[in-house]
């Protein structure tokens, strides 16, 4: 038997450093959670709030399973270190068969609980599910482009670029599509989860802001060189402020006509917010139908792309 080695023993004790590192960085996280910057932990809308609750529940449940397991693992490693002459060494130890069952059943129970909570939550928080609230719901149509977001307000007949204002406590249905843009993901972390905006498809995302304020929005999915600059501001305001804003926008100098739409369609990066007093009511439908019909449009598009190169 080789004699126990000093350095190696110290390593045995150092094993504790690993969970300590864990803990230390946990504290760092806790410190930052304290910070208001953490959008996901500071929801300003109903959906974000519920998503957070679910995340926290899952996190707590998982930690309840993982922390004891980790403790057991590091404790076992430490206890049966080579230099610990007091620990029993028995290479032929037979662990009872019931251990096997425990091994499978305990994680299974945790998984069942989590799945049991997750299944209804997934249905409850399905993005296309309408939010029940007192206020009359409203619809905003969203078109992703290279690299900006166009917002159409069909009920108010105004349009904006990279800026969206919504009244608080009012359920808002975002109808997401895209035009000549790779898949983009519509995400306002303070208000709630993202959904993809794709050409020829309409994805509906229901959100409801509860606290007035300006919240950053972005595309979370990469869609080309202008990706990082494809940001917008979502402003949640009182209903009165919202109505005032709508009437102000109605006074804007420009309409979103065919020409200005064609201009928007040209790739551009980090666009500032822009406001349009009106738009063609069938614009949104046209954008979607564009991808259902003939392929002539497509060939033109490829040609322009090649020219740009």
């Amino acid at each position, binding site marked *: 038997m080789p004699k126990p080695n000093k350095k190696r023993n110290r390593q045995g004790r150092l094993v504790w450093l690993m969970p300590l590192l864990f803990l230390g960085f946990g504290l760092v996280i806790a410190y930052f959670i304290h910070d208001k910057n953490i959008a996901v932990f500071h929801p300003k809308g109903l959906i974000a709030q519920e998503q957070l609750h679910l995340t926290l529940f899952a996190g707590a449940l998982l930690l309840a399973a993982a922390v004891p397991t980790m403790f057991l693992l590091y404790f076992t490693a430490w206890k049966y270190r080579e230099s610990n002459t007091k620990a029993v060494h028995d290479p032929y130890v037979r662990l009872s068969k019931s251990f096997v069952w425990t091994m499978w059943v305990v994680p299974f129970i945790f998984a069942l609980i989590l799945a049991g909570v997750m299944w209804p939550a997934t249905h409850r928080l399905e993005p296309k599910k309408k939010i029940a609230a007192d206020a009359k719901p409203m619809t905003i149509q969203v078109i992703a482009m290279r690299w900006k977001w166009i917002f159409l307000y069909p009920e108010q007949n105004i349009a904006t670029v990279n800026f969206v204002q919504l009244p608080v406590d009012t359920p808002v249905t975002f109808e997401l599509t895209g035009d000549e843009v790779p898949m983009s993901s519509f995400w306002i972390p303070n208000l709630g989860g993202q959904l993809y905006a794709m050409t020829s498809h309409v994805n509906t995302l229901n959100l409801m802001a509860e606290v007035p304020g300006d919240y950053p929005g972005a595309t979370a999915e990469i869609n080309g060189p202008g990706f990082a600059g494809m940001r917008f501001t979502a402003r949640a305001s009182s209903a009165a402020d919202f109505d005032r804003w709508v009437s102000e926008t109605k006074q804007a100098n420009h309409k979103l006509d065919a020409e200005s739409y064609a201009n928007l369609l040209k790739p551009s990066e980090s666009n500032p917010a822009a406001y349009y007093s009106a738009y063609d009511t069938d614009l949104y439908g046209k954008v979607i139908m564009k991808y*259902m*019909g*003939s*392929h002539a449009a497509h060939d033109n598009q490829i040609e322009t792309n090649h020219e740009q190169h």
Partner: protein
Amino acid sequence: MSRHIDHEAEATDRVMFGFWVYLMTDLLMFAILFAVYAVLHGNTLGGETGRDLFSLPLALQETLLLLTSSFTCGIAMIAARQRKKAQTLLWFGITFALGLAFLGLELYEFAEFIHEGHTMQTNAFLSSFFVLVGTHGLHITSGLLWMGVTLIYVMKRGLNDHLVRKLAMLSLFWHFLDIVWIFIFTTVYLRAFV
């Protein structure tokens, strides 16, 4: 010497097993192409559908050719296992000719479509059709090439263990392509008319 034979037999066993695994990977690749066809076959953008384009008698002829070739391939393999060189060559020759005829019909069909302006660039339905059927056609082509080369070696070297193993793999491959074709025939051609 008996050890040497064991060694050879083990090698054959291994190689055949490996070839089965390979066929499985190939099958999975076809499965993807079938899935893609299933998703895209309706996306004609208002153009002609499979029903308008396909000719059932032609597809039926192709099927019969390939089924027969599978049968002759089986007979050829029996001959090969009994080391009957002339019969092996004959039946594999017939298989080869049938395969070639099948390929010819398929190319004829493709040429017709392209001539009429139905290319793989036209729409998603035709893209998936050409790629699915074309991939099978490419497999047939490589099978024919393999058959041709092996037969030349059989003529030169006679039917030794090594070549019979090659032929056995080839016949597996050929039957496999036959099965894939049956799937193509039903899911692509027949379904278009249901």
